[in-house]
């Protein structure tokens, strides 16, 4: 029994292995049952898989965000299904939809009510840049008054796109270094540089030679 068990890597072993692959400064023992590394790295790893989103919907994107919780997409696979209705219990604010000028004070207040560390995903063209709505009543991008960590493109983004955004945020959270508790003064958070996916994907996109014709299912 014990011999068989040692043949297979344990679940912790697999998870730690993936951490190693992503160049985490966490080192797993040969059998996956010992972890060595900094406490900071371990906490960042824990944070990465328990991002609780704030159930905050503005418009159409919110429906696709809700769809990402349902069985076909199941965002619970990434530990982010605990939708909180109170901002005080949430870690990540998904700005899902158009940011209306009339809503701005509310959005700011809700963001302030979230406990640090907190992150913001801007979901959809409207929140990213105003999108189709270059119109008097709409703020041209939520980043004009909130710090945005990840932008998800689409109008509205498919649930899969939102989940990709979540994975990007997870990668960021895992590499971030923050103080372990509240501090007076500067927090000295180190963040990884943000690279546009467009640039990363360019070789892939350029390699595409055939597109599926639109007149067939």
């Amino acid at each position, binding site marked *: 029994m014990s011999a068989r068990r040692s043949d297979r890597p344990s679940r912790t072993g697999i998870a730690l292995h993936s951490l190693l692959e992503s160049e985490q400064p966490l080192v797993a023992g040969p059998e996956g049952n010992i972890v060595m590394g900094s406490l900071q790295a371990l906490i960042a790893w824990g944070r990465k898989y328990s991002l609780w989103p704030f159930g905050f919907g503005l418009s159409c994107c919110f429906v696709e965000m809700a769809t990402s919780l349902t069985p076909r997409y199941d965002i619970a696979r990434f530990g982010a299904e605990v939708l909180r209705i109170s901002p005080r219990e949430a870690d990540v604010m998904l700005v899902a939809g158009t940011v209306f000028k009339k809503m701005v004070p*509310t959005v700011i207040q809700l963001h302030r009510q979230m406990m640090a560390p907190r992150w913001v995903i801007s979901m959809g063209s409207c929140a990213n840049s105003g999108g*189709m709505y270059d*119109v008097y009543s709409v703020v041209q991008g939520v980043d*004009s008054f909130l710090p945005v960590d990840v932008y998800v493109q689409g109008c509205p983004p498919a649930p899969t796109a939102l989940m990709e955004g979540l994975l990007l945020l997870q990668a960021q959270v895992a590499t971030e270094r923050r103080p372990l508790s509240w501090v007076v003064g500067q927090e000295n958070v180190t963040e990884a540089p943000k690279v546009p996916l467009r640039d990363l994907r360019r070789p892939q996109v350029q390699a595409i030679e055939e597109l599926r014709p639109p007149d067939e299912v």
Partner: protein
Amino acid sequence: MAAAAETTAAAGVLAELRARFPGAELTAQATADGIPTAWLPPDLLLEALGYLKSEAERPFRFLYDLGAMDERWRAHRAGLPAADFSVFYHLVSYERNADLRLKVALLGETPAIASVTPLWPAAGWYEREVWDMFGIRVEDHPDLRRILTPPWWQGHPLRKEHPARGTEYGPFEVPEEQYEEWMDDLRFEPQKWGLPSAEDDPTLMYLNIGPQHGATHGPFRVIVGLRDEEIVHCLPDIGYHHRGAEKIAERQTWHRFIPHTDRIDYLSGVGNNLPYVLSVEELCGIDVPERAQVIRVMLAEFYRIASHLVFYGTFAQDVGALSPVFYTFEDRERIFDDIIEPICGARMHANWFRIGGVAQDLPKGWERGVLEYLDYLPARLDEYDRLIMDNRILKARTVGVGPVSVEDAVEWGVTGANLRAAGYPWDWRKQRPYSHYEWFDFDVPVGTTGDSYDRIAVRVEEMRQSLRIIRQCVENMPDGLHRSHHPLATPPSKEPHTMHDIETLITHFLGVTWGPVVPPGEACVYTEGSKGQYSYYCISDGENTSYRTRIRTPSFAHLQALPLLSRGFEIADLVTILGSIDFVMGDCDR
């Protein structure tokens, strides 16, 4: 034949008005949609509307729409009274199955008009919108505040000189003092809303819900005055989702406004394209090929099902049943994955209808996904009947909660499934078939009491009827064109006259780039959408953009009726009622 009958009816109601008010200056206006339209002198307004509402035989009891227009830049207005602004009143008579549009010309920069709230309390929000958007003062209005824009807004957005674009305002910044000022504006002060303060009446407690709240389905705010748990005051506050769609319509070409319609009722996708393209086609006089019509019906019905499925699941969640939403969203996902995406290429905002047809013909093999779905959903709906509709707790929370009578529903502009739930079997697909709905065999489900339970039951049955319609679409899909060859159909067809010489090439090029130049006129066509009655009142001044597009949406009227539905019930019932009226904030605030 039908057209001739309509003209007689038009002459009929105007003649009736002339006979009742002899000597009054009544200017008839010809419109592309055939709706009798007349300009009234302002002093006759209340009297004429009062007569039409209650005295006339088979009266016009339904104030369908009330809006205004900036007439100052309008070029084609020969034969119409001089006006800087105009206010229109769109009345519907169910008894006659007829409409009437009355307009009042106003002069000056800041004109004023009498309020019609003594006749129709439901005009309240519409008149506030007229004030907010145009700066037309409505005299003797009980509560004339801005409705869509925030209280600190400068100017009136739908006036022609008001900036349209957000980028015209420069960078958006929120200094701390500004933020605090805006937060102060959001604070609820009962006196400002004409209510007793909590100090004056110690048994009363005010509770603010929204604009961000789990049960409001989007940015919607409602303030309730409670005595214990009973709702004594209910004050909906909207405008947190105002995207300026009507202003955008005045700058996009006719064709390029179609994607914006998708986002009005953002659960209904092409169900919004339909009333818009129907109105533009009415203006242009385009006959849409049969195949395009049936494709439209099929896709619109699929979106109706998708919208109702979202309603069904989220409503159950609102009253505490947490699992149904996972089932209904999976069914919706199948519509998107197997049908909408293969055909249209997008999920929620398909943007698939075009002026004169649809964007593309159906792809090869489209039937398979559709037929599979038709076999799949009925069993699921039966299961939901047991899971949701027969659920004792759900019944206890919904039966008898928030009922509305037919009289009240008509009075407050309630349409669609909410009207039918009250027991009035009115469905525009039957009463005034568009897109050849008369070819299809389907029933109109009705409720009896108009309570929350009936509102769900009617929608559930509507999904079954939509499946029936879709099956008939698949079995009888006509051959032929998917888009008309009419010169104003967009994007213009290359057949049969293009690519022969430079002239036809230039015409085609202009049609693609500038879009069609729609002949001057006015048209408004109703459709039976998933939330209620949708229409786009398109006014062309002979340009490639609209002069004014008025979007009349059901959610606006339904939310205005919220106090009527919820007063006297308990605070927990408010969530039930909100869920059951099936609104979308995009549809309400546009």
